């Protein structure tokens, strides 16, 4: 299997990472657009009639031929939802969700999540900087470039994953810098944050820039694995302000490192995390953690899914352990946390990737196992 290949979540056939549909069974591949309600069976004429044709205007039902290439209906003018508004990647044992939220006009977050050879997972989350030009293009370009480098590294140099992560960030930087865009007044060039994880052999190699985060929800206790490149973090680090004071400042969430043509120089953050026991690695954009910055709180929220599940054995006091056993499917956890962020206000785009890890256990199940 080539490094840029992945496994179809539906039929386990090998597919190219760049493919949108599985060659074998036709299922939608990474990243999947929310499929919405399944097409009504033809035996049910009533349901059939109520279903708009695929590609029809979501507002007035005008046929696909009237929905223009610029995304506006040529009949009622309504802006059609972008496929990026809500996407899910469901690879069974691991999953990701990205959502536009309630206030932003588009989803400027992007994510990649794939099984590469053996039980190895590559995950990337980027959050486009809203005050830059075309941040949605920046995040997508960064995610695509980094995922390709990481997948390649897993295949050819699995012992150099930290260096591969540095290379992946450099590749993302090159991809975003080479984007062609129309200047808009004083707005800076396309920019985004970055966080990646390669989970291989029970350990996680992480890389990041900006304020997208990785959390560990597991023993010995839930914890944040990344430090933000943000004004608040830097002020607290210099000791000139307490963390609380810095967080209360309007500049608190201004990021100090990012990917983009005008990004400051310097090495990205790269580290390898070795879990003490089974738990869940979570990557997310600030659309989630703005509402739940604490690792304990996120673990509690994630654990609630398992508790709510039919066979959650551990009760509310055991959130971290309850996940690793696969009690709650990864997609349920990612969806649950997305809904939490939406219910909390959904002021920003939300992206969440959920990767259960059991360092002592058998290799992670691939969908084909």
């Amino acid at each position, binding site marked *: 299997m080539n490094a840029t290949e992945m496994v179809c979540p539906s039929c386990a056939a090998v597919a190219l990472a760049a493919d949108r549909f599985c060659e074998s069974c036709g299922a939608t591949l990474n990243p999947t657009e929310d499929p919405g309600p399944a097409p009504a069976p033809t035996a049910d004429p009533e349901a059939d009639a109520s279903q708009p044709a695929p590609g029809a205007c979501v507002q*007035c039902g005008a046929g696909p031929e009237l929905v223009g290439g610029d995304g*506006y*209906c040529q*009949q*009622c*003018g*309504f*802006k059609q939802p972008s496929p990026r508004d809500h996407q899910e990647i469901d690879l069974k044992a691991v999953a990701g969700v990205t959502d536009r939220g*309630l*206030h932003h006009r588009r989803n400027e977050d992007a994510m990649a999540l794939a099984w590469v050879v053996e039980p190895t997972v590559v995950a990337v989350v980027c959050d486009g900087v809203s005050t830059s030009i075309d941040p949605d293009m920046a995040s997508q370009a960064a995610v695509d470039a980094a995922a390709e480098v990481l997948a390649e590294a897993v295949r050819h140099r699995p012992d150099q994953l930290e260096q591969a992560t540095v290379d992946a960030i450099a590749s993302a930087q090159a991809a975003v810098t080479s984007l062609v865009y129309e200047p808009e007044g004083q707005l800076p060039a396309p920019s985004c944050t970055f966080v990646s994880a390669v989970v291989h052999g029970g350990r996680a190699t992480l890389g990041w820039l900006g304020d997208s985060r990785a959390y560990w929800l597991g023993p010995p206790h839930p914890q944040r694995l990344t430090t933000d490149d943000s004004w608040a973090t830097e002020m607290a680090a210099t000791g000139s302000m307490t963390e609380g004071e810095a967080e209360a400042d309007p500049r608190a969430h201004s990021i100090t490192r990012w990917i983009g043509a005008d990004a400051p120089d310097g090495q990205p953050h790269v580290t390898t995390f070795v879990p003490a026991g089974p738990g869940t690695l979570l990557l997310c954009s600030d659309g989630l953690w703005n509402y739940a910055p604490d690792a304990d709180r996120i673990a509690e929220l994630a654990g609630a899914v398992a508790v709510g599940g039919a066979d959650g054995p551990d009760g509310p006091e055991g959130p971290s352990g309850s996940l690793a056993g696969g009690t709650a499917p990864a997609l349920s956890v990612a969806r649950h946390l997305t809904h939490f962020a939406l219910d909390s206000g959904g002021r920003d785009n939300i992206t969440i990737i959920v990767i259960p890890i059991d360092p002592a256990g058998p290799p992670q199940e691939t969908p084909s196992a």
Partner: protein
Amino acid sequence: MSTFTAETYQNEYLPEGTTEVNAVVTVTAKGAGADGASAPTEAVEVIVIDCSGSMDYPPSKIRAARQATTTAIGCLRDGVWFAVIAGTKTATQVFPPTGGLVRASPQTRAEAGAEVARLRANGGTAIGEWLVLADQLFAQQPAAIHHAILLTDGKDEGEYPQYLDQVLAACQSHFQCDCRGVGTDWVVSELRKVATALLGTVDIIADPAGLEADFQAMIEAAMGKAVNNVVLRLWAPQGADVMFVKQVSPNIEDLTPKRTAVNPLTADFPTGAWGDESRDYHLCIKVRAGNVGDEMLAGRVSLVVDDQPQSQTLVKAIWTDDTQLSTRINQAVAHYTGQAELAQNIQEGLEARKQGDEETATVKLGRAVQLAAEAGNEATTKLLAKVVDVEDASSGTVRLKRQVEDADEMALDTRSTKTVRLGKST
């Protein structure tokens, strides 16, 4: 090869429940001048000179008209088709004397000058008749750019008022006509009606001595336009109402009544011939209300030349509960809304003054002074100062002048629709 570009200036964010979308669209043409055209553009110029008896009182009027016409003919590009009409209670073709059109050349220009020198003032005024003859002449070269100059010094009293309206309706989009009134015995509203219907300008030349320079400028502008019949095409969504489409720069022209439907959602508005220039349009579209977070295309504007859409710009509506976004004022829209209000206040204020309603006149002209000052419209500020004494421009406090020259009042009225452009930042 000409290129048209269109850009939208608007605040697309609307508070919940709002349905009115306002935008200013700036259209800029490049390579549309006569020298930019790959092949010389065919053009027809018809000059219509009022030869009614009053043009002899004072005789400087008919003398200046003869001189200005000769100069204008001298400015015609070689090869441009032209004709001269003498207007009385009928229309008489002065040149070419055999009827029809001739191409400009050193010889025809000299011959025309000799005929124009023989123009005498004697007869009535029937503007409709003059335009009918001009229309017939233009029809002989249907593919060319058609431009006319119409000069009068009096009221159109040689025919039924409805007749002029019928003629204007029939001539619409056949040719463009710049109208000039010499002296102060003509009627501003009447000449404005002709200019508006025929996509031309209107102005007062109170002193006949100014005619020559003005004619020359008009011909030079006409010769500089090489792209004909440019149409502004507007698509608006189902259920939307196009409240108005106005040209707002260089002067205010309401194009709304000139609408022709292309299909149920698309309409064309004629903008005439273009040279290398830039014009602004103010669009107001009422759309169906959306929910917070919805985005709708409220208008799609394109410029159509020879049935080919040349460029496109979008007018959007995005509903938001963020008042910081929805209360932002777009400077271009605010500026031209103010300029339209300025023109309206001047016209209504002068009308009230004529009717003896000094209170209304003072309020309207005071508001005009205030708006002109706010917009930095110095030309209009100067014209207003000849009609009112300004006590405080910022609050619009004015007193009506007791003695006002007819020419000053007519100049203010005529030029009320001339706008100044907003200095575009970034």
